[in-house]
């Protein structure tokens, strides 16, 4: 199929326009974090570093950052273990109910976040009679993070050579030794990529979090949401927004690079 010159130009134009629109709001937030005006005025009347200084001197903000990191770490660890087990099972075996299990893993992200959040809120409070806490957030986050690890590991396993595992067994290695010395190194970078994705997913999550967090638990997204509507807080929220983007985008850039490099 030959694509005519005019079609190429039109497609290129639409693509660059869409990309510009994708980046414009993020650039505006970045610029606004230096904006002298307190209420998002455009064009900025002047620039200041004031908001950055103030943001990093705020105790509540640093505490929220810590909470988010702890939750994201715990949730991704659980997801790493469960996601890997599931990927090994589904890639290596044929069994009854395989499709249902595949559907069960994607359900927590395929259904709207509010459904997941409400279902867990209801289960914790009404059914189990638990107090919402940080642990309930970790359980909720781990549940929807499993799929990212699962997807990454499954994709990798479908490309790995199983002869190596058979050879290892023939040479006398037990299944645990074979897993440690043969399988694990082969799926290592997929685990890192999946883990990083899970971390970022949990770190940014807000909807499920608002339904499962206890009264005293303030993650970074909850902090942003609480402060967004407070008068005079907008510029500090801009600073936090820029920081969150950097914290989640940098590891994800590497996760992406990892999964692409192996694909080659």
């Amino acid at each position: 199929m030959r694509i005519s010159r005019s079609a190429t130009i039109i497609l290129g134009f639409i693509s660059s326009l869409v990309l510009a629109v994708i980046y414009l709001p993020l650039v505006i937030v970045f610029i606004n974090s230096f904006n002298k005006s307190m209420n998002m005025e455009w064009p900025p009347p002047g620039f200041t570093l004031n908001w950055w200084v103030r943001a990093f001197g705020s105790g509540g903000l640093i505490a929220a950052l810590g909470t988010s990191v702890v939750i994201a770490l715990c949730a991704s660890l659980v997801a790493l273990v469960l996601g890997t087990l599931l990927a090994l099972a589904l890639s290596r075996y044929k069994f009854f109910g395989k499709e249902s299990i595949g559907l069960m893993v994607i359900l927590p992200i395929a259904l709207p976040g509010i459904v997941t959040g409400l279902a867990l809120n209801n289960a914790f409070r009404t059914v189990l009679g638990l107090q919402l806490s940080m642990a309930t957030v970790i359980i909720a986050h781990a549940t929807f993070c499993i799929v990212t690890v699962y997807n990454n590991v499954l994709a990798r396993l479908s490309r790995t050579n199983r002869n190596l595992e058979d050879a290892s067994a023939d040479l006398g290695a037990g299944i645990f030794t074979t897993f440690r010395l043969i399988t694990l190194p082969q799926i290592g970078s997929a685990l890192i990529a999946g883990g990083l994705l899970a971390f970022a997913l949990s770190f940014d999550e807000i909807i499920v979090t608002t339904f499962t967090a206890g009264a005293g638990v303030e993650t970074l997204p909850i902090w942003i949401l609480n402060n967004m509507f407070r008068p005079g807080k907008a510029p500090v929220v801009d600073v936090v927004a820029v920081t969150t983007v950097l914290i989640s985008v940098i590891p994800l850039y590497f996760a992406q690079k990892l999964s692409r490099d192996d694909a080659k």
Partner: protein
Amino acid sequence: MTKNPSVAGAAIAVTPARRVSSYLYNHAKARLQLLLAAPVLWLALVYIAALLMLLVTAFWTVDEFTGNTKVAWNLDNIVSLFTDSLYSSVTLRTIGIALGVTLVDIALALPIAFFMSKVAGPKLRNILAISVLLPLWASYLVKAYAWRSVLSNKGVLQWLLEPLGLNTPGYSLWGAAITLGYMWLPYVILPIYGGLEKVPGNMLEASSDLGAKTFTTVRRVIFPMILPSIIAGSIFAFSLTLGDYITINIVGGPNQMLGNLIYTNVGTANNLPMAAALALIPIAIMFAYLGSVRRTGALNNL
């Protein structure tokens, strides 16, 4: 190939771990059960059980004196979904916004995905793929907040539109729809791009060698092949819009979507059974949608 690895390595001491290992080596079923046990228990107990309990709770009620959820089976909540005009109008509005957002996102995603996979050279393609991916990972909340700045009365959109005699839509349903469409666009572009990448170039050449014009090739060769990817993208955009309640708070002004009704019933109104009944609407819609597209293979493209 030896059946039992401990026979091959006779020098290895028979430790308990070794015994477990050789037992598992010879029993594929036990191996599978061991792998599946933890994740399936977790998903079934934490998630599926919670979803089922949510269905059940919708048929309970709230004790008027204590404010606690009480097991008293009734259909009141479900009936009010259909009779209360607030619920039906908000539901229709939410579905309308979700449909609009999904269709616009598909319309925008198709040309850019096509450009990326079939027009751009390998180097430009990589740059574009990363450029589309990166903002996907910027926090949802940050993006909604970014649009709050863009749409504000003194914001950049007003500044751009004013010379043209236009005004920013401000914090309204339009503002919310634009923001939601913006947020889910990368989720729609990526699966479609992935689908187009799988369309082999020589198939397109074959089509044109057989006399098909560009449009015919797009319609009869490319479109059927990428339909599952388009559906996969639409699942994201549609489902995410259907359950949203934060974006509409941030850029939607006083307007409400289904998510807001659910949220107020959990929080201020403290009526979990009503919240559960309302949540049945997005669940039913998504299950109907997932069920109807299952055969297209779209779910493998998620």
